[in-house]
């Protein structure tokens, strides 16, 4: 054994080891093209070292020439792989230069195999013996091949290409990579220039190409090694954060999902699988998922997903899911479109949450609100009961008296048929009046959920003032109504809005009941506000709200009246806010109270 053999063999071994490692990496991961190119480059560098060792040991010109010929092949492979590695790894470098270098190195192989011993010498006449590290090595003596200029040109292009790519990589932010790879290649190129200068001066027996390439391989291997370490760390932290996400999603009863649109495959995490009732390894497609959705919500969900994909916007939908045992659950899903490399929506990714409990609470709350509203309505009606009984007994009394009169008329001979006809007509009319009173009361007392429709305020105000008419008369109150004829209709529930107005007018009636007659005056006004809202104002000239309770008049059970339940204004506010409006109370400087509330104009918009 001597040093030359040891060094060159080790150099080759290092290169081949790198190559072997990265071949494995490249085989494992389809995306690691940089590793593959590096493995090729390192493998070729290993071969180059071995061939150089053979050349240094060559005893005849022919043997040397043969070794050198194959060294050109290895060098070409190293260079070409290196050029494309740089493009792949730094994501930089000019394509034209890369192609030119590749072309030149392939072109060099033509004179290498046709007519000459190799691309360096046109003829090797003899082998001289020189000394390196105290060992004898072979040095070729011969004529230079004129084609050798191509090798120099390719080296020059490589230098330009690598410097340019490094600068570009540096600018893109991959500073360390650009510095290591670019520095190593430029350093190696300069070293090879230095080596050939030393060779020309007779201080070195040859260019020692294998060792120069070893330098590049080590630099590249170092970088890729760092990447592998980093990938390992990433994998660890990824699994950590995955565990954290899982913890959070479990705790919040959420599931994660991702729908790859192209493959139509839905990835769902364990939580989402449980939510949807899928087995742990069952393959999930979008249609398969839709099958678990309540039939009434299915199309809406599909449309929402498609809309999100087409518009590239956020996806948000609440729907019912039917479990394997037929149990129904409410799910809220929220997601985002992820675009592929071509800019087209490729995935829909998001979370879903079981909101069954929340929904149940909401429904319960809604039901309670409606019950409360109904109770309050009943109490408001109760306050009116005297008046309503009066209104009912009026037509009923008339019917009774008419019937009695008719009975007596029938006993006379001959009966007065004209009078009897008039009686029957009156009975008809009074019966209708009684039915209308009952109808108005029943409409208010009926328990029902809110049904939004276009409501004509003029009509509504007329209906409520009809309900209150007798009470208003009995208290000798004047009610002024001011509603423009072209007022747009509002979006609302007729009965609930009647209740709001009834509550406000009952309060106002109470406020003015004991005042001097000229101040017993109420006004109801409705007018458009210009921002698509309609404002309704109820005003009285009573004493106003007590200042100390002013801030709480809309709170439940706060009453300024002796027999008030304290619910009228609270429920009025609930109803107005459920209509998307606001309600507020004011005391007027010159005395009196004003309550105003807003309602949204109906979408059909047209005046009534």
């Amino acid at each position, binding site marked *: 054994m001597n040093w030359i053999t040891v060094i060159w063999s080790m150099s080759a071994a290092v290169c081949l080891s790198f190559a072997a490692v990265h071949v494995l990496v490249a085989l494992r991961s389809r995306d690691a093209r940089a590793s593959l190119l590096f493995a090729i480059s390192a493998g070729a560098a290993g071969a180059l070292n071995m061939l150089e060792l053979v050349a240094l040991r060559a005893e005849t010109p022919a043997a040397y020439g043969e070794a050198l010929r194959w060294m050109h092949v290895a060098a070409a492979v190293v260079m070409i792989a290196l050029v494309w590695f740089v493009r792949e790894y730094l994501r930089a470098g000019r394509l034209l230069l890369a192609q030119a270098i590749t072309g030149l190195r392939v072109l060099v192989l033509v004179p290498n195999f046709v007519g000459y011993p190799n691309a360096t010498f046109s003829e090797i006449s003899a082998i001289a013996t020189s000394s390196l590290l105290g060992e004898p090595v072979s040095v070729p003596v011969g004529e230079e091949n004129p084609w050798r200029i191509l090798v120099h040109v390719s080296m020059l292009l490589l230098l330009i290409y690598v410097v340019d790519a490094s600068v570009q990589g540096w600018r893109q932010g991959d500073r360390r990579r650009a510095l290591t790879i670019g520095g190593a290649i430029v350093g190696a190129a300069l070293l090879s220039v230095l080596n050939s200068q030393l060779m020309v001066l007779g201080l070195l027996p040859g260019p020692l190409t294998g060792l120069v390439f070893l330098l590049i391989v080590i630099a590249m291997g170092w970088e890729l090694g760092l990447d592998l370490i980093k990938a390992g760390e990433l994998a660890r932290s990824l699994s950590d954060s995955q565990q954290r996400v899982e913890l959070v999603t479990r705790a919040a009863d959420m599931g994660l999902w991702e729908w790859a649109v192209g493959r139509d495959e839905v990835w769902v995490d364990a939580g989402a699988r449980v939510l949807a009732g899928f087995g742990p390894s069952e393959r999930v497609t979008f249609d398969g998922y839709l099958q678990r959705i309540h039939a009434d919500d299915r199309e809406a969900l599909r449309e929402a997903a498609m809309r999100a994909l087409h518009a590239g916007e956020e996806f948000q939908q609440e729907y019912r899911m039917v479990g394997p045992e037929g149990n129904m659950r409410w799910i809220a899903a929220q997601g985002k479109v992820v675009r592929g490399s071509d800019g087209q929506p490729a995935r829909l990714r998001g979370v879903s949450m079981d909101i069954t409990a929340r929904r149940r609470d909401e429904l319960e709350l809604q039901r309670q609100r409606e019950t409360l509203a109904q109770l309050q309505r009943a109490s408001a009606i109760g306050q009116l009961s005297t008046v309503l009984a009066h209104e009912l007994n009026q037509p009923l*009394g*008339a*019917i009774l*008296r008419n019937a009695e009169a008719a009975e007596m008329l029938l006993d006379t001979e001959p009966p007065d048929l004209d009078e009897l006809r008039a009686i029957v007509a*009156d009975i008809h009319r009074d019966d209708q009046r009684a039915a209308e009173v009952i109808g108005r009361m029943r409409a208010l007392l009926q328990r029902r959920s809110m049904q939004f429709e276009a409501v004509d305020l003029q009509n509504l105000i007329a209906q409520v003032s009809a309900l209150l008419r007798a009470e208003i008369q009995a208290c000798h109150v004047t009610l002024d109504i001011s509603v423009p004829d072209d007022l747009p209709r509002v979006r609302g529930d007729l009965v609930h809005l009647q209740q709001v107005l009834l509550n406000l007018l009952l309060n106002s009636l109470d406020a003015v009941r004991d005042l001097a007659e000229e101040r017993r005056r109420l006004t109801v006004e409705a007018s458009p506000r210009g921002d698509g809202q309609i404002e309704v104002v109820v005003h009285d000239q009573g004493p106003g709200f007590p200042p100390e309770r002013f801030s709480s008049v809309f709170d439940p059970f706060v009453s300024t009246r002796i027999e008030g339940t304290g619910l009228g204004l609270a429920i009025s506010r609930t109803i107005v806010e459920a209509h998307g409006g606001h309600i507020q109370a004011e005391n007027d400087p010159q005395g009196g109270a004003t309550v105003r509330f807003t309602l949204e104009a109906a979408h059909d918009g047209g005046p009534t």
Partner: protein
Amino acid sequence: MNPLNRTDDVPPTVFVVDDDASFIRSLERMLRASGYAVRGFTSAADFLERRPAGVAGCVVADLKMPGMDGMSLQQALAQSDDPLPVVFLTGHGDIPTSVTAMRRGAEDFLTKTAPRDQLLGAIERALARDAHERHMRTQQRELRARIAALTPREREVLGHVLRGERNKQIAADLGIDERSVKRHRTRLMAKLRVTSVAALTRLAVEAGVAFDGGPAEIT
């Protein structure tokens, strides 16, 4: 001519006062078929303004009416010089109002859907009461007219007689002789058309005059 004398040729009338025209019509029909003279008015003010003077009868009024309500009507009638009993009809009887109404002398207080017998009974009672009160008022007026025809001295003597004093005592009190007392006494009994002290006392009570405080009060 005394307007009250016109009552003779008009039958007792039931005046129906209600703001509901249809109800008035039905009640008019029923009462007419039952044999009553009926007149309807759609408001209390209208009735007070246009009621025929001195006609006997009664009022059937709605308690709740716009403008003047039933209670105010009753008050106005009671204060007039030609009062009429009132039967109240209401849509819905509430106790405090009915108590007040009865205390103020309402004949009855019924709901609008009360049975016919009840309603006719109340009207009958009201008419009887009106007839009675009318008779009392006529008699009272006549007695007062007779008392007004006495001379001042006769009135003085009357006062003492009603107090139960004897002629001798009266003569002493008035400073006149006993025969003069007897003469005044005979004359006043003739003017008042009574023959005994008992009848004289009853007349004084019916005429609504008291003689406790002395002779001046008989005027």
